Structures are given as structure tokens and as C-alpha cells.
């Protein structure tokens, strides 16, 4: 791990310089965009950050952690207690560090507890943990402290943005160096075969627990700063279970194979969400769900993987492969569904006057869906390869 091996590498130099340019652009951004875009960018950075932290552990090992909301919520709650509207108990940077440390300890604890759990059980356990903490805190706040919600002091949008940027850069650097270090290789081998990894002398337990806890630090820190954007905090808001699923979705959407896959995935996904909620608010849920299903069905290796495969296919020419006929039926079903939904939307439903735009977007989605299908069929992407049989 000599730093000069990196600096002398030409590839590294190119990447490093372009990254610096991006960073400089991000750092000067609040100078020339409006307040809302700074807020939006803060949220996108937060999602990228959480996704990348999630990937540090879950990417190479294949353990699907759904504890993200717990780590983030711990950060939010730390801020709610130490940084209330009535006056900060401690300076903010210290609170962020404390939130990181608490998340780290929680991560250690969860990591140590779940050593025996594998596969889906690990995912369910971590999700159960989020709900348990949320419910316990709720009961505690209601029956023991009788708190009527907590208010967090508001901060300047630019300030929040810069703090988030610092945590973001720290996350990326950590993720990158863990990936390139012995730890990264150890995690990789754990993901491939845990027993074999133990046999070649990797301290499996230690590596797993430490990396899991490190990945929790940044989520906690991000939660601490984002609390002042939420303003009003209660356990439901702090421990929002959706935040457990988001990083998983975003990472798979982007593709887990490459370092930059989750980053691209999170950025695109977060922006897409915001775009749909504001531009096509009535169709947000439907479109979001449809995109998820389509991503899982047609590009399980994510955005990056899909682009790579498409490029490769274009280079080498399409290959002829068999296609399950059910796919057609599936797509046909979704077509009917889309038609039905747009029909319902076009109707004047009692009271709720609905956007006419929605019909348009549903049509576009359905058409795009068929075009993708046609393209994939042409490129031989719809191939079969049964596992296990």
C-alpha cells in the first residue's frame, strides 16, 4: 500500500485530475445555482453517500444489509437531542462526529450479533432491527419522556451542503481505499466462499464486523446533518424503513460490478424520483414501481452492466439465443395494465381531478418498454440459462 504506486499510475492520474475537477465544480456550485438546487444536490449527495457506504460491506460480500435506516436514524436522533431548536448543546461538527461514533458502535454490535446469519436471514434481521429500534424509541418517548416531537435548529442550505460534501468525499475515499486494500480483497473472498476465505488465513469475523461498522459511520454522520433539513423529528421520521431499501435499490440499479456503478445508480435514481414526484406527481408510484420491476427483469446487472453488455454486443454483433415466451406475455400484461391505468386516470374520478399529463407519461413508458424489448431481442439479450438445473 505505497501511495506512490498510485501516483505514478497514469490511469490514476487521469481519474484523479477529472475527479478533482468534479470536486471543484461541486464545491463552487452554490455560487451559481439557486437555493433549491443546492438542497436537491444535498439530497442526491446523501443518497450517493448512503449507497456507497452500503456497497462497502454488502457489495463484495453479498450480505444484503437492510440496517441503513437504523444507522441514519441514529444520526438524526443524535442531532435531535444535541442540536435542538432551543439551542445547541454541542458544536455541530462534534455532534456529527458523535453520531458517527454511535453508528459505529451500533454497527459493531449488529455485526457481532449476526455472525451466524447468512443470506436472507441477515437481511431480515437487519430490517427487524430498524423496526425494533423505531418502536422501542417510540414507546420510550411517549411513555417515559412524554416528548411531543423534537425540533432541530435550522441551518443555512449552503452550510448543510458543504458539510454533506465533506462527508461525501470522506465516504468515497474510504470506499475506494477499502476496495483497493487487503480488506477489500478479504471481503471479496468472503463473498465468493466464506469457508475457503477462513482456511487461507483471513480473520473472517474481524473483517466482517469492522467493515460493517465502518460503513455505518458515514450513514450516521449524514443523518446528523440531514436532521436540520427535516426540522421536526419523531421516531417514525428518523427511522424511515424506506431508507433501508433505497441504497439496495440504487446500488443494484447502478450495478454492483464497478466502483462507480452505485454512484451513477444513486444519482440517476434520486434525480428520477424527484423528477417524477414534481413533474408527474400522480404517476409517481406507478412509474417508480414499473421502473423497479423492469430493472430487475431486464437489467439485473444494473445500468452500468447493461451499457457494457450492449456495447459488447454492438461490437461483436448479436448472438442468437432462445427466448422464453413468457416474457412476451409478461410484457403484454404490463401493456394492458398501462392501458387500464391510463384509462382510469383519464376518467374524472370523484373529487380528484387528475393530470392529463399522466396519460402521456404512461403511454411513453409503455412504448419505451416495447422499444427496449425489441432492441434487446435484436441484440440477443433475452437469453436463457437456467441455474441449478
Amino acid at each position: 500500500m505505497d501511495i506512490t504506486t498510485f501516483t505514478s499510475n497514469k490511469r490514476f492520474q487521469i481519474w484523479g485530475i477529472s475527479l478533482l475537477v468534479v470536486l471543484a465544480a461541486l464545491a463552487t456550485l452554490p455560487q451559481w445555482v439557486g437555493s433549491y438546487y443546492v438542497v436537491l444536490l444535498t439530497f442526491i449527495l446523501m443518497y450517493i453517500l448512503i449507497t456507497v457506504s452500503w456497497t462497502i460491506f454488502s457489495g463484495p460480500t453479498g450480505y444484503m444489509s437492510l440496517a441503513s435506516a437504523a444507522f441514519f436514524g441514529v444520526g438524526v436522533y443524535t442531532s435531535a437531542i444535541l442540536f435542538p431548536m432551543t439551542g445547541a448543546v454541542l458544536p455541530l461538527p462534534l455532534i456529527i462526529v458523535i453520531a458517527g461514533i454511535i453508528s459505529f458502535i451500533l454497527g459493531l454490535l449488529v455485526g457481532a450479533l449476526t455472525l451466524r446469519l447468512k443470506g436472507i436471514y441477515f437481511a431480515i434481521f437487519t430490517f427487524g432491527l430498524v423496526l425494533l429500534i423505531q418502536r422501542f424509541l417510540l414507546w420510550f418517548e411517549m411513555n417515559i419522556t412524554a416528548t411531543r416531537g423534537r425540533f432541530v435548529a435550522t441551518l443555512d442550505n449552503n452550510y448543510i451542503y458543504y458539510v454533506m460534501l465533506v462527508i461525501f468525499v470522506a465516504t468515497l475515499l474510504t470506499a475506494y481505499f477499502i476496495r483497493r486494500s487487503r480488506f477489500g480483497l478479504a471481503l471479496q473472498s468472503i463473498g465468493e466462499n466464506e469457508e475457503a476465505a477462513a482456511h487461507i488465513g483471513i480473520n473472517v469475523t474481524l473483517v466482517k464486523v469492522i467493515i460493517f461498522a465502518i460503513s455505518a459511520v458515514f450513514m450516521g454522520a449524514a443523518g446528523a446533518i440531514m436532521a436540520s433539513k427535516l426540522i421536526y423529528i419523531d421516531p417514525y421520521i428518523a427511522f424511515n424503513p424506506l431508507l433501508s431499501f433505497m441504497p439496495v435499490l440504487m446500488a443494484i440499479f447502478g450495478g454492483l460490478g464497478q466502483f462507480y456503478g452505485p454512484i451513477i445508480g444513486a444519482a440517476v435514481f434520486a434525480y428520477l424520483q424527484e423528477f417524477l414526484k414534481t413533474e408527474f406527481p400522480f404517476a409517481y408510484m406507478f412509474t417508480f414501481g414499473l421502473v423497479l420491476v423492469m430493472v430487475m427483469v431486464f437489467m439485473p446487472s444494473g445500468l452500468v452492466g447493461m451499457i457494457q453488455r450492449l456495447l459488447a454486443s454492438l461490437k461483436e454483433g448479436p448472438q442468437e439465443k432462445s427466448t422464453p415466451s413468457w416474457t412476451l406475455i409478461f410484457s403484454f400484461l404490463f401493456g394492458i395494465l398501462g392501458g387500464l391505468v391510463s384509462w382510469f386516470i383519464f376518467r374524472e374520478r370523484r373529487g380528484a381531478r387528475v393530470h392529463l399529463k399522466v396519460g402521456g407519461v404512461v403511454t411513453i413508458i409503455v412504448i419505451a418498454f416495447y422499444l427496449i424489448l425489441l432492441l434487446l431481442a435484436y441484440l440477443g439479450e433475452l437469453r436463457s440459462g437456467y441455474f441449478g438445473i
Partner: protein
Amino acid sequence: METVLDVVVAGLLLGGIFALISIGLSLQYGVARVLNVAHGEFIMIGAFVTWVLFEAGVNPLISLMIVGPGAFIIGFILYQAMFNYIRIKAPSLDAFEGNSILAAFGLLFVIQYIALIIWGSNIHGYTYLASPIHLGTVTVATNRLVTLGFTVVISVIFYIFLALTRLGKAIRAAAQDPATAGLMGVNIKRVLAICFGFGALMAGVAGVLLSMCYPINASMGLHYTIIAIVVVVLGGMGSIVGSFIGGFILGIVGSIVTYFDPGLSMVAYYLIFIILLLVRPKGIMGK
């Protein structure tokens, strides 16, 4: 003594509901390997259809006959068309499980949105069989007792079906080792789809019975999904008996905790769940 009896009866009735909503998920996860987070949405759709039919004058118990097969067909097609395709593309079983959860997550949004568009977000409900029955010193609501009765009957029918019929044997074989079952001449694709369909059927039936006791709205599904996951893990994935026992254990524990502090009942569920996962990850009846 009376209080103890009250607690036990309340626990049994609640356990019946928990068992009912989780048997379907147990089949879907245990055999078809899809942790269907949209399970609760099927319950919601079942409940709404029953409500619509009730408004049109159809008895909810007759709706069972309509909703059940309908849900089965939808579940069957969904698996054949969607999850099966994800399964084919997935490089490993773990990858399939991960991908199918996310696809089911998308399905959750789509189904919930359709329900929102059709029925709106208002709360609905109807009153059916809402009268007390006195059993000795204990008073129970008729609709809850009917729900418990149906749960027991349906579970027994399912158990017998799995134990005795040819298809049941194929399903059990597929649950144990899909690859070998495939080699032995089981049409694995169809068996898994049938299993998923049965899961949806149970969810639809649960929706019908739940709508007699609970108010319904378009966003009620996720709550039932989470309870179902807790029960399924408690009982052991893919085991109907396990889900049955798990449901009753959770119901009785919930009742006892409710007796002391109702505010802690959800905390108790998750605590039991987490401890059990640590002590016995395979569940009570898991192998």
C-alpha cells in the same frame, strides 16, 4: 383466572389472523423462493374486492370463492411471467432472492397505485357478523371466531393436500431441492408458479376474512407483510405447520404483552423475532 382465560382466547383469535396472513408467504418464500413483499397488497386487494362485493349485496363468505381463485390466477401468471424470468437470468439462488425482493417491491408500488386510483385513499369497511358470542365466561366477536375457524380449516386442507396429493409431493420436493426434483421429472417451472399462486390465493382469502374485522384502506398492506415475515421466520420458511404454530405463539405473546402494556406489543414482536433469529435462524419447524 378469568383474566388468564381472556388473554388466552384473545391470543388465539389474534394468532389465527397472524397464521392466516403468513401461510401464503411461507409457501411463496419457502418453495418459490420469492420473499414477496407485495404479499400485503394481495391481502389489500382481496379485502377491497370483498368490500365492493358486499356493497353490491354479496356475502363475504361467498366472496371467498371468487377472490381465492382470482388471486391464484394472478399469482400464477405473475410468477410465470415475471419472477420466473428473473430466476432464469439470475446467476445464483442468492442473486435471485435479492432481485426478486426488489421486483416484488416494485410490484408493491404498482398494485398500491392501482388500488389508489380505483378506490381512492379513503378508509372503508362494513359490518358483518358483528355480534358477541358468550362461551362460558368469555365473550368473543362472531366474525373473529369465523375467521379463526376458516384459518384452521384452510390450513388443514392445505396440509392434507401437500401430504397426500401428487402435486403436493412435487411441491415438497421442489422445496427441498429444486434441481434434483427437476431431474426426477417434476416440471419445476410450473410447480413453483403454482406455489406462488397458492400464496396469492391465501393472501386473497386472508384479505376477505380480515375485511370482516378490520377497516381497510389502500396503504394497509405493508403492515400485514411485515407481520407475515415475522411469523414465517418464526415458524420456519416453507412450513405450513410452522407458520400455523408461529402465528399462535406470536398471538398469545402479543396478548400477554398487551395485557401489561399495549404500547409495547409491537416491540415485543420484533424482540421475539430478533432473538429467535439469533438462537434458531431456521425457525421452529425449519430444517
